[in-house]
């Protein structure tokens, strides 16, 4: 009973809360980093250096008036943010934050569950989020959200093909779909997959940016052309849920890239005996540090690069990333057979 229900439930609550806090502070970090990139200070008023800004934002969104436009499809309009947010959160169920450790004399694994189709689960659940976007745009019955949701879904599915194809070569290296096994494979093969699969790493990173609608692929929410994107008609808490989903997806992409390419919870050079003292640092710390690097990279890219044009975006997805992904897969397969 305890192992079956209570411990998973406890882990779920911890992960959910950690995600929510991470998301709110991600927003602050983004505002701060972009402000620094532009020689501004960013939020400074709420708390010292603006550290309480996320809490103020959360309260504000809670007590904001929530409007359902008269022409909107009422139930779908409410369901869309939920459909968008739930997949973004439940992906964390298979992300390993650390190995199995002893805690209070009990063996506790630092992941919620380890299923043998972990990576497939992540890819499929993450793509359910598209429904939230398309339903939001359609049910709003307003021109800009509809256009934006069409754009967003076309973009998401285009890049999903490239990312999924690229992930096949990682599975080829690891020989397993389980996230825990993929990390173990990197330990056993004495190499982080970022060095074995540098092309795949770059492709997944670009695809990840596009999948999360981040700059330079933030066309679905291009403020200048679409007045905000698929959530133009949303306000208050339902808008907040979309926001939450978007940032939660960013954290998911960083965690997945960390697990697949940077050895997840493994310390740097895990097989070098001289560096064994790195194991004294708790494993989840390494995971968080590596994920944070990617989150920072996402913000950095947003502060640096201009936005793509839509035809450029589609060309990059279909004519550059997909051939490269197929090529990478073929080369990986051939090299692997030659090394056997």
């Amino acid at each position: 009973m305890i192992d079956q229900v209570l411990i998973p439930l406890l882990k779920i609550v911890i992960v959910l809360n950690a995600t929510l806090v991470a998301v709110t502070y991600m927003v602050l970090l983004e505002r701060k980093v972009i402000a620094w990139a532009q020689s501004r200070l960013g939020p400074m008023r709420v708390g010292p250096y603006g550290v309480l800004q996320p809490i103020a934002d959360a309260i504000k969104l809670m007590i904001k008036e929530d409007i359902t436009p008269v022409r909107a499809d009422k139930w779908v309009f409410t369901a869309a943010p939920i459909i968008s947010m739930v997949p973004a959160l439940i992906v964390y169920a298979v992300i390993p934050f650390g190995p199995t450790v002893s805690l209070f004399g009990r063996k506790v694994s630092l992941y919620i569950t380890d299923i043998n189709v972990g990576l497939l689960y992540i890819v499929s659940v993450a793509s359910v989020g598209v429904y939230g976007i398309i339903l939001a745009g359609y049910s709003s019955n307003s021109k800009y959200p509809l256009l934006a949701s069409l754009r967003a879904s076309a973009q998401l599915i285009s890049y999903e093909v490239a990312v999924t194809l690229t992930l096949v070569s990682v599975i080829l290296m690891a020989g397993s779909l389980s996230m825990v096994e993929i990390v173990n494979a990197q330990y056993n093969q004495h190499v982080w997959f970022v060095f074995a699969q540098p092309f795949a790493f770059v492709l997944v990173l670009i695809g990840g940016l596009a999948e999360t609608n981040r700059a330079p692929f933030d066309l679905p929410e291009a403020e200048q052309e679409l007045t905000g994107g698929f959530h133009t008609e949303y306000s208050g808490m339902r808008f907040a849920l979309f926001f939450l989903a978007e940032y939660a997806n960013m954290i998911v992409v960083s965690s997945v890239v960390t697990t697949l390419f940077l050895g997840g919870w493994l310390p740097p050079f895990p097989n070098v005996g001289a560096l064994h003292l790195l194991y004294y640092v708790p494993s989840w710390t390494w995971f968080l540090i590596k994920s944070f690097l990617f989150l920072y990279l996402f913000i950095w890219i947003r502060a640096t690069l201009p936005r793509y044009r839509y035809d450029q975006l589609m060309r990059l997805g279909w004519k550059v990333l997909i051939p490269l992904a197929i090529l990478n897969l073929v080369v990986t397969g051939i090299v692997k057979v030659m090394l056997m």
Partner: protein
Amino acid sequence: MLSAYIPIAMFVAVATGFAIFTIVFSNLLHPHKYNKVKLEPYECGIEPATDARDRYSIRYYLVAMLFVIFDVETVFMFPWAVIFNKLALFGLIEMMVFIFILVVGYYYAWQKGALEWV
């Protein structure tokens, strides 16, 4: 084996519950002062003349079709990649044939202009 999925089902329940709870809870807190103008769809101040759900570009449909084809092909590669160590050379050649057919279709779509956006 199936017991590994129980935490996922729990997570779905908790996440959905959380989402519904926040919407209901904020509904108790926020003001409800609506008027006609406020409830109109956003259209830069002009009253919307028609329904927004109009016909849209055929390209979106085309992209969706291509996605279905390519994504299904990719799903076939997942089990192959997992047992690649057992299949070795045989598996590689089999998959090369499969990928070759995929690439021929891809080349056809490219030449037909299905991948062009404008």
